[in-house]
């Protein structure tokens, strides 16, 4: 999980991710990587915090194409509305 300290959503996202992993019985380690600068955001193609990649794949491929920036990431809900963290359904789908 890539995160930027300036956005408060990553602890909630981490908790949700760990819940989903536990529910699925997946024994995986969540690796946290802080993004501190614009240059780092550019190098890591970081479209905002939090960005969750599972085996290198972003859990929200559409949002992953946003401009790299130190910002809170927008996750669009399938039923409309937005959230600063991915939905449980997005995480489950990303896990396959």
């Amino acid at each position: 999980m890539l995160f930027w300290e300036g956005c408060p959503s990553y602890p909630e996202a981490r908790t949700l991710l760990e819940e989903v992993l536990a529910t699925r019985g997946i024994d995986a380690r969540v690796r946290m990587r802080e993004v501190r600068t614009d240059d780092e955001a550019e190098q890591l193609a970081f479209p905002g915090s939090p960005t969750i990649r599972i085996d290198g794949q972003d859990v929200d491929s559409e949002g992953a194409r946003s401009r790299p920036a130190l910002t809170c990431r927008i996750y669009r809900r399938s039923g409309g509305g937005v959230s600063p963290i991915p939905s449980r359904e997005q995480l489950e789908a990303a896990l396959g």
Partner: protein
Amino acid sequence: MTLALASEAPPFDLPGTDGSNHSLEDYADASLLAVVWSCNHCPYVQAWESRMKALQRDYGTRGFRLVAINSNDSDTYPEDSFEEMQARAEREEFNFDYLHDEDQSAARAYGPSRTPEVFLFDRGRRLVYHGAIDDSRDEGSVREHYLRDALDALLAGDDPPIAETPPVGCSVKWRA
């Protein structure tokens, strides 16, 4: 430094997305005035935006005005430029004024740290509530309606039951 409770509202005079400038004095008729730090790009703002419109709709006839101010550095966050603000205000049919604080002078005077962040002033323009709109970005999970409760109390002649809460949202994007 953030404005302390009971402080007087600092003056501002800022361009709005409606094409006019709006100053603090322009809201003199409002019995209650909420100045909300806001922006375009933040998912927390976007999650709360419909509730901002609902507050203006529900309390507007009772003398309440909500004014949103965007102070973010649009050089670094181009989604927060004045042009993008105008587009968003039109697309989302804002029923409140949306002002651009390009030089961040209003932000320095009020001292917000987050978007959204509410500064609610009484008729004498003293700060009577500061913080979050309510207790959850997820509208379906709201249990504490901080701003609504403050408005109801003030309109009934009482003090807000809670005068200060921690704002939750994106950081204000200061110019380097």
